């Protein structure tokens, strides 16, 4: 079993040069026709702005702390002048992202089993390690939210937004037509976001006086930084391997 890659030559009908005669004809006709109404692409922006002004509460809100103890703790934060819901919202976001991350690496492991790896590419052990890290980060965030009296099962607005932003990542990995190299490209998107978001979370926690929490998050960031370096390396070597392959070869052979 083999898998063609992004860069193999074949029939592709999307370009204008595929149909020289017809394209000339439709270009001429499009040039002759006038738009039905005046204006430009800014008209769309006007409608968007109108809806933004009427958007009310936005996506949704952060749920109130679940336990009495947590309420007391949150009240202390409020006295310090902080708005604890911001931290809870971002913790909820990270938790959801890490949990989704586990599913992403499960998907990558399936790709590895079918398509195999390449020189400098991911091994099963490393993929498993990252998966385990994501799980333990999920556990860390659950614990942190519980300590703050928040409900770790709640979907916070930032968790929702992040899942909308990254909707394509699980879709790219679960597509049976993509190989491990292409899945790595999707993992890169996830890891870049992950790193930047942990950095932000650490600053936020420290700023609110949660130093112990921030220290523990720094360990998570260390692990994430390594994930990012690994994924970048796998992708670089994967692309290079592909580019060096002869024009007519299918570059990624499957392991039995």
């Amino acid at each position: 079993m083999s898998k063609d890659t992004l860069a193999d030559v074949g029939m592709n009908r999307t370009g204008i040069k595929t149909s020289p005669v017809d394209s000339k004809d439709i270009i001429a006709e499009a040039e002759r026709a006038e738009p039905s109404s005046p204006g430009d692409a800014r008209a769309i922006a006007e409608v968007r702005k109108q809806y933004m002004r009427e958007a009310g509460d936005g996506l949704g809100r952060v749920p109130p702390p679940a336990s009495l103890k947590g309420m007391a703790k949150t009240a202390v934060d409020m006295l310090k002048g902080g708005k604890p819901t911001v931290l809870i919202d971002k913790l909820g976001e990270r938790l959801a992202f890490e949990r989704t991350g586990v599913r992403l690496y499960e998907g990558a492991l399936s790709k590895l089993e079918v398509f195999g790896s390449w020189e400098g590419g991911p091994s099963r052990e490393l993929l498993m390690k990252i998966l385990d890290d994501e799980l333990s980060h999920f556990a860390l965030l659950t614990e942190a939210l519980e300590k703050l009296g928040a409900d770790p099962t709640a979907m916070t607005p930032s968790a929702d937004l992040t899942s909308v932003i990254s909707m394509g990542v699980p879709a790219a990995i679960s597509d049976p037509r993509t190989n491990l190299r292409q899945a790595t490209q999707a993992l890169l998107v996830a890891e870049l976001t992950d790193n930047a978001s942990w950095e932000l979370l650490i600053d936020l926690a420290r700023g609110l006086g949660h130093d112990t929490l921030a220290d523990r998050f720094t360990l998570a960031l260390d692990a994430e930084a390594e994930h990012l370096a690994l994924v970048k390396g796998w992708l670089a070597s994967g692309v290079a391997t592909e580019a060096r392959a002869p024009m007519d070869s299918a570059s990624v052979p499957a392991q039995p």
Partner: protein
Amino acid sequence: MALDLFKEKGVPVERQAFTWKDLVRRPYSKMDDDAFTRTRVILMNGIEADALRMKHIFARLSLELRPHLALVRRAEHHQQTLVNWLTPPDQKVIETTLGFEQLAIEVTASVAIHEPDPYLAQTYRFGMLEDFDHLYRYSALYDRLEGQDPNNITQSYTDIIPGRPTSVEHRHPLDDLRRPYDRKAADPLSKLHAMTITASEFQTHDYYMTVGPTFTDPVARQLYAEIASIEEQHVTQYGSLMDPGESLLEKWMLHEAMEVYNYHSCLAYETNPRIKEVWQRFVDYELGHLHYVMELFKSLEQRDPAEVLPRTLPEPIAFKEHREFVRKVLSQEVDMRSDGTEYVDKSQLPPDHRTLVYQAQLNSEGSPSETAAAGYKWRPGTELAAKAERMGSVLEGRRLQ
């Protein structure tokens, strides 16, 4: 106060106007609004879709009714748009799907409880257990595809556990047909129920057929294909409850009454004031449609609408959890199967029964619903929560070599 269908005239069809801005308004919140607001939006989209579908088919069958159908249908198309566009754009397809199944469970349960005819009530209980299982299968898929918690959508109103396994729901088409109610003898509520559930299942079928291919995951594509097939069976089942002896106008008039009934039920339970206003407006619009058709019924069929319609609307459909009822039905009727139009225990079907032969062939290359939910147990925070607990947090600082 019960709504008097004969006294309340609503808004006349010619005054039912919309603008694009009116049609595309602020959606509800996926996270902050009650799960039943989501299910009501789904239900009413389905009811309006059915109103359009029925009117298009009737227009093919009757030149006389065609202009009248066109007039009312246009208003209903825009009602459907306004309702369906209340769906928030951050609600993913699979999340809307969970909403569809929750709706099917809770509304069918309410209908089963209030249905006066025992055979019809049994049909609703039978179908409900199947949709109940679909919620469990899609929940497993949601958890396993994205690592997300299905209860974020269902909000602890509905159990996420297996029902009658989807893999055994596949029946020979002739075992999905049911005995219709008798148009002269049936309680008007029975007619409203049959139309409501048929409409709801029809939209579920159409939705799954539309969104199934948008998934990249092959198990998701298979699961939507499998459950869409059951929804087609459900449409066959519920659609066959209706008496084919009703005239087109009689069916149309009943459908409008059913639409009033459904909007009125939504209105009774809605907690979001912006959405409540929509339900109130459309109760009034549907009353306008109903009276339009009542006049046609009198003039074209020379019949009194009171022969067919209830004077006042029955108790609203209950948009609330029915866990106790569902659990009881599950424990008593999960092994029910269907043989022609009748219900029997699974032990009564001979091994060469047409349904078993049909089922074995369909499942012969594997069962998507079994694959998606293999070993699945929902728990708060997804099935990964248990694994994460065992794994422990990064207190010691996990490092890669």
